[in-house]
């Protein structure tokens, strides 16, 4: 299972990449494996307000549906246009082509935003079977 060093994570299995004022969000390799084949993603709309730790969409797989949580506070600026037609990108490339949405951060002062897990912390979480 892959947990890239340059990312931060949520206990709900999202990853976030922060670059300046923009955060890119997706679900982790662990999450996509646990879900199985993703068939549909409902991401928040462009312009929507999202809040850290709050549900903002859903990820539907063959066997189940899970809430998608925003890792950060801000406004959605972009949604991955490829996911609509090819939700399997979430399985095949969860940290790359399978990204879900981008957020313009409200607070660019705190680096990194509070409440996120380091790769080491996230690895521990997944080993505990969370």
């Amino acid at each position, binding site marked *: 299972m892959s947990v890239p060093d340059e990312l931060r994570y949520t206990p709900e299995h999202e990853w976030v990449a922060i670059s300046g004022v923009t955060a890119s969000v997706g679900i982790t390799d662990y999450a996509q494996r646990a879900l*199985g084949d993703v068939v549909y993603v409902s991401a928040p709309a462009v312009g929507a307000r999202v809040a850290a730790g709050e549900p903002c969409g859903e990820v539907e797989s063959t*066997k189940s549906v899970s809430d998608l949580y925003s890792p950060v506070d801000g406004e959605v600026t972009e949604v991955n246009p490829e996911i609509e037609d090819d939700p399997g990108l979430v399985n095949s490339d969860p940290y790359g082509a399978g990204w879900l949405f981008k957020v313009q951060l409200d607070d660019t002062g705190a680096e990194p935003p509070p409440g996120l897990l380091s790769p080491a912390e996230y690895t521990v979480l997944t080993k505990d079977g969370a």
Partner: protein
Amino acid sequence: MHEQLGASLTDFAGWLMPLRYGSETAEHNAVRTAAGIFDLSHMGELAVTGPAAPAALDYALTGAPSALQPGRARYTMICTPDGGVLDDLIVYRLGAAEYLIVANAANTAAVAEALTERAAGRDAMVRDRTDGYALIAVQGPRAAAILAPLASAELDGLKYYASYPALLAGRQVLLARTGYTGEDGFEIFAAPGDAAELWTAISDAGVGHGLLPAGLAARDTLRLEAGMPLYGNELSRDVSPFDAGLGRVVRFDKPDDFVGRAALAVRATAAPQRRLVGLVGESRRVPRHGYDVLWNGTKCGTVTSGAPSPTLGAPIAMAYVRPDAAEAATDMAVDVRGRAEPARLVELPFYRRA
């Protein structure tokens, strides 16, 4: 073995079973277009033997196992005295006085108990042989071509819902042409000690045929597309075979009494309380087990099973709905977590092999 293949395992009725090996959609499609190999060793096997075994089973089950030819098999049910479904079963007649009954894993103990009780006082013996059998299924249009080089007998002679003892890859098995996928296929009952080597031999024979190991996730979407009920979803003690549209398994033409006969006769002719229907979702959000079915905005039923269908490319579901709604409506909706998603009422099954 399964972990070596990268399987995700899941606890199912106390058995640690492979949920999927890779992509469950790829496994599903392999069964539809080539073949898949499944470990079904969790299924319960009950042996019913003795001179009175045919009569005991005619009394215990809704079908007429006494009328089965040795070597043939039948889908049947065991009902409670009030006509509820205790389990759905495959009954294989192995000989004049020998039957093998395959039950759902979670129900095996209850079925064994009911059979024992119903056979009491007759010259018949019921034994739970679940630990004595491994069960491997090979399902799909290429299944026969994959198994033919391994089998001691001609597979062409093995009809649908028939079985015979055979050597497969040099091991003694009961080879049956049955399945739960809507495709041609085989179920192989083997000694547990032979299972790993059989699995390997079949997998090797499947190279070049597109055979994939397939897990419970694919098995569920395959049976759902084929409109086959799953105990605990479409079937339970609270529904009769007639509710599920499977009244044909109840053989009122049997001469003697059987458990549930009187209650089933009433339920066969009474106005039905619900009907099992198929729904095809028109959005991408999937109706799931337990969701409300809506007709003109009000609840008219409940989803029993739902999944994204790889073959149809749309969400599909089975649901129990009020008979008047099933008669009148073609367009319904399913309350998918607070939002009404449109769904079209269709005849079951969703998929029938060409």
